[in-house]
């Protein structure tokens, strides 16, 4: 049974349609990440769940109860804001207990809860300080503490890590993950960072221009993106999208990639979908993740990969330490291959790569939908 349900949600500001029919549901204890480029409506969606924005059409259910008409304070939610939104005139303890005070919780109980959450987040020694006396990471903790004292049905996070530096962001990400494991509370989390989305989520919803592009587990989103936008947005470096031609050879479907010298590279498709059959003899877009192209020896362990050799020109190589990225020419486009760190590929040379076709996806060049 779904714990949070968003049903046919629409939001209009005047004549501007910000959300166009959003349907998402999250099970109890799930971690939903709303991801998309800025202006895609993800924060607006979060605000409608919080009750800070009204909805134009559709409904929102929390634990089976329609909350459309409920005031934010009555929805049993807690929210962590991008700017932390700590009350500047109150110290940390007051910031954390303000909501309880508004709900009429007795003072002794308030102090008890604040003490418990403060020790959980290790901010006991900050309780007397004003927000202006805290560092960025400490403010982030206090903002989470303010949400935690509530023990809500749903936590809402609005880009909570985007104001932190890179190192602290990774630390806090892990901490949020631990918190979720420990508390098991349902979380809705907005970010534009696809790595945060992949690492934290149990369910990812990708939005663009107010339209839901795809909802699924991180693996579904990553391996079988619904369309070219999702394929391109999720993953870093992003998926290689190469124009190709779908043909049938010896009874199997193959894609042909044009090379600069006019010849073609032919790669067989592994488990083509039924929709792909209709595209035989037509142009398609072939999607290959960078890690599907490597230069490992062909006799690799049996991991279900369908490796096929491919010769390509290496333009530059970019060692990242853990592995080396190589920019190669593929089907007339620049493509990225993720190679081993100790690869022998050198810029300016022609090399033979192994392409794992088991995870290749095809897109319709017209509709940009996956086949």
């Amino acid at each position, binding site marked *: 049974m779904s714990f949070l349900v968003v049903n046919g949600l629409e939001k209009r500001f005047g004549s501007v349609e910000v959300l166009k029919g959003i349907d998402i549901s999250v099970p109890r204890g799930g971690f939903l990440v709303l991801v998309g480029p800025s202006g895609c409506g993800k924060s607006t969606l979060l605000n409608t769940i919080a009750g800070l924005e009204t909805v134009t059409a559709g409904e929102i259910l929390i634990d089976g109860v329609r909350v459309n008409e409920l005031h934010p304070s009555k929805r049993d939610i807690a929210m962590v804001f991008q700017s932390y*939104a700590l009350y500047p*005139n109150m110290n940390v303890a007051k910031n954390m207990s303000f909501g309880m005070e508004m709900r009429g919780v007795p003072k002794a109980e308030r102090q008890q809860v604040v003490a418990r959450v403060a020790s959980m987040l290790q901010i006991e020694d900050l309780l007397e300080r004003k927000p202006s006396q805290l560092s960025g990471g400490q403010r982030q903790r206090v903002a989470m503490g303010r949400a935690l004292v509530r023990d809500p049905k749903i936590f809402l996070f609005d880009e909570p890590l985007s*104001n932190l530096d890179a190192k602290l962001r990774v630390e806090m990400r892990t901490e949020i993950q631990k918190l979720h494991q420990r508390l098991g509370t349902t979380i809705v989390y907005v970010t534009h960072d696809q790595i945060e989305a992949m690492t934290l989520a149990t369910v990812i919803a990708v939005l663009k221009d107010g339209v839901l592009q795809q909802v699924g587990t991180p693996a579904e989103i990553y391996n079988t993106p619904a369309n070219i936008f999702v394929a391109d947005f999720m993953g870093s470096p992003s998926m290689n999208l190469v124009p190709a031609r779908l043909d049938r050879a010896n009874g199997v479907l193959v894609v042909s990639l044009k090379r600069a010298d006019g010849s073609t590279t032919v790669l067989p498709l592994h488990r083509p979908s039924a929709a792909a059959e209709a595209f035989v003899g037509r142009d398609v877009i072939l999607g290959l993740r960078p890690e599907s192209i490597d230069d490992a020896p062909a006799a690799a362990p049996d991991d279900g990969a369908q490796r096929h050799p491919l010769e390509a020109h290496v333009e530059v190589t970019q060692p990242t330490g853990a592995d080396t990225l190589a920019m190669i020419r593929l089907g007339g486009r620049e493509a990225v291959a993720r190679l081993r760190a100790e690869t022998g590929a050198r810029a300016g040379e022609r090399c033979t790569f192994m392409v794992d076709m088991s995870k290749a996806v095809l897109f319709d060049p017209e509709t940009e939908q996956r086949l």
Partner: protein
Amino acid sequence: MAASAVETAVRTGRLTRALIYAALLVFAVYYLLPLFVMMVNSFKELDEIRGGNMLALPELVTIAPWIKAWNQAQIGVQPTGLAPYFLNSIKMVVPAVVISTLLGALNGYVLTKWRFRGDTLLFALMLFACFIPFQIVLIPMARVLGFLGIAGTTWGLVLVHVVYGLGFTTLFFRNYYAAFPTELVKAAQIDGANFLQIFYRILLPSSGPIIVVTVIWQFTSIWNDFLFGASFSDFDSQPMTVALNNLVSSSTGVKEYNVHFAGAILAAIPTLLVYVVAGRYFVRGLMAGAVKG
């Protein structure tokens, strides 16, 4: 080469600096001279003023003119001095400043954090109130005061000044709250605070600097107002400015310059005091740490 260039730069710097200071000094003297003349002569006997140099220090220091201006001088019919009118002004200024500041803050809060259709137009119209000349509102205001039955009372004057000051106080607070993070209001909403709780628990405690600015502005302009005071007050509600005018322009027989000077300084003391006391809290940076810093 480089050394000489530096030397020249320093020398021209000094010369310019000297010129600037000289100019500033001239202006300072120019502005302080009237105050000096008033101070010096308010401590002189009348004879000494008439017979001698206006700029000279008193030969014989006396505080008699001050005492006379405060509670003996003939103003209107009674020899009451300025004291009761001083009290009238206080009774008018304090409520007028408090009410107009609070209403301005509330307006600013609504105009920035509870936006509604047409709010910018409404704000523009309120802003327009800052540019309406006093004279235009005299007759309509007299009608309103008569209609409300508070013509000629201190509360009538309070109403006039609140209405007239609202444009300014709203402008100050709206601009201040426009920079106040809206996420704080959202956070307080989720915490369950209502409209007024958000206002006085979250916004007002962070409004120190703008409250000081507004209070100084409102206090100074209401205290110094003459036209409304002269138009809408009775004998028993006349503010200090009107009484001072009566003291200076309607004394019998001799012009007692020393008393007039003392009275004028007495009338100016409260605004000076407000500026000296409140000006110390005229500090920025109370918002530091509310959001990412």
